[in-house]
């Protein structure tokens, strides 16, 4: 909502300075978003004549125009508008002026090699309308060439952001009323002159009784024998200051009343109405051409104003071409109606129309403002255009009930924390238009018809504290006392997993929860796609089923930027269905490139599966699972290389699935067109990480180091090639869990001297007893046990 201070002062008697008014507005919830001085800027736009046009030598669609602004000087201006032609009178913006629409400051610039001094403007560039097709065409302005187009005297224009509940502040008077309650001034009571209403209303009006009728009241005035003309300067300036384009006195007056009293009106050329006005629901498929020059196909239940021939307008939204007023219009029908917000909203949304009237009606217009609106508009029309007016004809009635709230002042203190007196309540609410009646128990508060937003005690409390001022609320320091855990186990895991991976060289990324279905499909074969009905773009059309979908997109983007050695991870939701809760938190990581790239110290090598396995295993250990409980197997899924990937489960193959790891399937890296296709990834499923049932302090057993010498023995087994070394190591560990402290494989060999279907595995075993130093005999004995167990369970032989 835009207002000017002089206009405000027509409703508010105040000696307050502009700054004070601006501060007050913001403090009572009418947030001032910007204050601009319109005259200095707008004064720069001059009425100008195009003397000559030539085709731009370097561009087909551009013209080089010779422009005159009255003096001898001829300005060369490059212009792209089709309608730029010799003799046209239009508006010229000189270098240094700021285009209202774009806030772009013009400079002398070369356009395709030709210097252009300023530009010729379209209506949209000057915020006069949405018309952007060509430059403005002015008629009968030959004598005004060189003058400023905007003639308004210097005034501050205040842009106020009105919250959706405050429909009443979409007019200057409503804002003045709110301000008056703060004591910054007094609301001026307006005495209207009695207007002569002698002639007969010529047009029958009716509201059809039907289901979902969107119109409650239809008020109108018939005015005949007017001379519609250009509005007087004071009226034009008022509208221009708000960024509106003056059209004709009749239209300008209806707009003026809308901005002044928040009372939308519409004027019909009465001679173009076929017999009578019927407010009814549209028929399915009925066509209508609106004042925005667009044709609309209507749906049933849309509220229309019609005559015997068809639709004249969409009630409360936009008028129609067929009955629009023109400068030659003689007789008019002035409409002031009340439409239901829900009906307006539905229709405007379905047809995608936004107008000042619609904006107001959908928030709720005072149903009791019809008469006042008609009075003010009729008075102005008679004054400016002459003519004779009829009595007002008002059909239908106000369906809103009077609201009365029995308010207890203690409730204010209970919610806000400070007290308020009954007098203060009376003063504030009365100035806002509420009627207060004090009794011993409470205050009966009658809500004014323009405040549909007020119905509860809390609503009144908000009114009171908003005017009294939030700064009067005494701050209560919070008590530093923690009575509940801040994070639960899963939240701690989330936090820990982030830090754990970042400490392993992974960069944390945060990406959308949605992704490109074409990529998501590759990582989530077989599961049902979860589409977004109204995606923001076609490559963000599904909820991600895999944490890899976006990671893969971004690893590629980084590779394309020239970064090859990448470790990225994201922790966040992946989705398994479209219902709330069908999601889980996954930690996903991708690693690509080389280790020791271009190092003078070590040989460079590709990242491999044991890098990624190492990251997964240490992360899981850091997340609280003992290493011995991490069971690794080669169960995998399609998005990984089938031979170079595996799973980690808890304790056994059947245990909860903790993670996948491995090389990303070459078919996927190929289809993504990754520059470096050597990409490894992992997924850790946080929901499967068990919460320990004991706290660390309870689960730590006492520490017992052995004081005796430890010994090591190496074994080389020849074993079936397909036998898993992880299982072999476990078999050895289980031989004597007390003595065997560590088992580790240090060589795997296939080839010469080893049968084709076998491999040789060299394993180092660390042995230590708690009660003595192991003798040669003891060591031989345990070695024998190991060899026997291994050969019995695996068929392996000791390599000789």
């Amino acid at each position, binding site marked *: 909502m835009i207002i000017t201070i002089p206009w405000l002062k027509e409703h508010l008697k105040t000696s307050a300075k502009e700054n004070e008014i601006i501060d007050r507005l913001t403090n009572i919830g009418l947030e001032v978003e910007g204050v601009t001085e319109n005259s200095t800027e707008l004064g720069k736009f001059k009425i100008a004549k195009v003397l000559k046009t030539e085709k731009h030598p370097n561009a087909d669609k551009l013209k080089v125009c010779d422009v005159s602004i009255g003096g001898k000087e001829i300005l060369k201006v490059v212009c792209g508008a089709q309608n730029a032609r010799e003799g046209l009178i239009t508006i010229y913006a000189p270098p240094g002026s700021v285009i209202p629409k774009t806030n772009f400051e013009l400079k002398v610039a070369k356009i395709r090699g030709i210097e252009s001094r300023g530009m010729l403007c379209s209506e949209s560039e000057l915020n006069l309308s949405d018309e952007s097709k060509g430059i403005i065409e002015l008629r009968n302005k030959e004598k005004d060439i060189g003058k400023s187009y905007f003639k308004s005297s210097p005034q501050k224009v205040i842009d106020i952001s009105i919250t959706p509940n405050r429909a009443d502040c979409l007019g200057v008077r409503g804002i003045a009323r709110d301000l008056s309650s703060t004591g910054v001034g007094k609301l001026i009571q307006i005495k209207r002159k009695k207007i002569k209403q002698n002639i007969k209303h010529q047009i029958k009006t009716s509201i059809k009784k039907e289901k979902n009728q969107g119109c409650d009241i239809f008020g109108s005035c018939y005015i005949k024998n007017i001379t519609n003309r250009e509005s007087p300067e004071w009226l034009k300036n008022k509208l221009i200051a708000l960024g509106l384009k003056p059209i004709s006195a009749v239209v300008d007056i209806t707009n003026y009343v809308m901005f002044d009293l928040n009372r939308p009106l519409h004027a019909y050329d009465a001679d173009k109405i076929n017999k009578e006005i019927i407010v009814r629901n549209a028929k399915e498929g009925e066509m209508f051409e609106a004042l925005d020059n667009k044709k609309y196909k209507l749906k049933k239940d849309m509220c229309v104003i019609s005559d015997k021939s068809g639709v004249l307008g969409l009630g409360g939204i936009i008028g129609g071409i067929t009955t629009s007023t023109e400068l030659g219009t003689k007789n008019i029908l002035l409409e002031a109606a009340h439409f239901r917000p829900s009906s307006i909203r539905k229709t405007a949304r379905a047809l995608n129309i936004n107008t000042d009237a619609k904006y107001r009606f959908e928030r709720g217009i005072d149903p009791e403002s019809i008469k006042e609106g008609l009075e003010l508009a009729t008075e102005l029309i008679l004054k400016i255009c002459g003519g004779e007016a009829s009595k007002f004809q008002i059909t239908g009635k106000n369906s809103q009930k009077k609201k009365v709230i029995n308010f207890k002042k203690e409730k204010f203190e209970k919610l806000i924390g400070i007290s308020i007196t009954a007098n203060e309540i009376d003063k504030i609410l009365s100035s806002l238009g509420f009627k207060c009646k004090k009794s011993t128990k409470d205050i009966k508060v009658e809500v004014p018809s323009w405040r549909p937003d007020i119905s509860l005690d809390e609503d009144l409390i908000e009114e009171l*504290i908003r005017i009294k001022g939030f700064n009067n609320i005494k701050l209560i320091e919070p008590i530093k006392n923690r*009575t509940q855990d801040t994070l639960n186990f899963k939240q701690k895991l989330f936090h820990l997993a982030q830090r754990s991976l970042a400490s392993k060289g992974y960069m944390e990324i945060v990406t959308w929860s949605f992704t490109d279905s074409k990529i998501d499909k590759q990582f989530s074969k077989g599961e049902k796609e979860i589409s977004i009905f109204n995606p923001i773009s076609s490559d963000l059309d599904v909820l991600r089923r895999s944490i890899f979908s976006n990671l893969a997109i971004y690893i590629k983007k980084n590779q394309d930027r020239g970064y090859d050695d990448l470790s990225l991870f994201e922790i966040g939701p992946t989705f398994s269905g479209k219902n709330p809760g069908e999601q889980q938190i996954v930690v996903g990581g991708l690693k690509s490139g080389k280790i020791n790239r271009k190092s003078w110290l070590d040989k460079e090598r590709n990242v491999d599966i044991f890098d990624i396995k190492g990251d997964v295993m240490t992360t899981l250990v850091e997340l609280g699972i003992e290493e011995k409980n991490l069971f690794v197997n080669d169960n995998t899924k399609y998005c990984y290389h089938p031979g170079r990937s595996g799973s980690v489960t808890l304790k056994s193959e059947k245990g909860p699935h903790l993670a996948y790891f491995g090389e990303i399937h070459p078919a996927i890296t190929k289809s993504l067109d990754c520059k470096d296709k050597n990409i490894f990834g992992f997924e850790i499923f946080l929901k499967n990480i068990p919460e320990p049932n004991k706290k660390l302090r309870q689960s730590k057993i006492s520490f017992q180091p052995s004081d005796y010498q430890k010994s090591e023995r190496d074994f080389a087994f020849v074993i079936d090639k397909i036998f898993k070394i992880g299982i072999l190591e476990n078999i050895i560990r289980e031989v004597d869990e007390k003595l065997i402290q560590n088992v580790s494989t240090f060589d795997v060999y296939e080839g010469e001297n080893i049968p084709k279907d076998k491999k040789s595995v060299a394993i180092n075993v660390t042995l230590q007893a708690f009660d003595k130093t192991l003798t040669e005999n003891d060591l031989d004995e345990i070695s024998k046990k190991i060899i026997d167990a291994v050969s019995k369970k695996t068929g392996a032989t000791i390599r000789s």
Partner: protein
Amino acid sequence: MSDLDKINSIFNAKIDSVKTKEDLQNIKTEFFGKNGQITLQFKSLGSLDHEKRKEFASNLNKIKEDLTQQLDKKNIEIETKEINEKLKNEKVDVTLPIRPSRQGKIHPVSQVIDEISSIFSEIGFSVAEGPDVESEYNNFTALNTPEEHPARDMHDTFYLEENKKLLLRTHTSPVQIRTMMSGKPPFKIIVPGRTYRCDSDQTHAPMFHQLEGLHIDKGITMGHLKGCLDYFIKEFFEVKNVKMRFRPSHFPFTEPSAEVDIGFKIEKGKIIIGEGDKWLEVLGCGMVHPNVLKNVKIDTKKYQGFAFGMGIDRLAMLKYGINDLRAFFEADYRWLSHFGFDPLDVPTNYRGLSK
């Protein structure tokens, strides 16, 4: 001159010329070897009479000790020299680079969530969460958002179906509903999380992060709300005083509602939070609307409280001078390296929120 004196002087004459381990061995053999001069003197002891032997033995032992000491000293001297000689040839260029490694970082959003959690933890809030996909009821209806509210438009909200029953939550407020539905008051929670709106330009992203706060108990007033936010803003921006303004506003789920602005100024191109005469909107808040409490079956005669919501990404931008929201979600390695946080910088109350 006695024999011993003679030996001593010969030794002294020779020891100075000892330069290498080999020389040392030679001189050792000469005096202490099988037929060494000292060894021979010891052998001669037997031939002396008792009186003389005692005195001679004493002198001999003294000289033996003295010479041994000198030899040891010489040995250390030679070894030190040899080590130094060796080290002279072992000099590396320490300015050569180390093995390449990858540096991991924590995303600014995660870091700021941890900072916020740490601050609210101090005054007894705990962290609650909810799903990203929500029902229309939890996201709008239960939060007193009217049926025709523009936020429900397809222009504003991502829906999973045409019937608008399921959506991507547009704020973290539905977690208020979930929390209050599944428990009994009092409630004191913060809810950081992903939120979604159909909006995408330089300053809007279709996904962003929000922090919701909710405190419901007996006798919680707007004074508590003010105190809580004043505490939070000061702690978060790590300033002692902060200029703060509560401005009346409107949200369907709170009544009264307010927006909170904080003072700031720009000094040498850097934003200074807390002072100055410009205002910056940072959050929305208010007393929970009685309709919301009724929807979750809370006795509004007994319980009341406040709620607030703020943009986490925006807070991160303000605190750490990040000027492009969209960059948060573009995973540019260079941006992450620049704005990311070391994983060891865990925000804590005792060590401070940030370095």
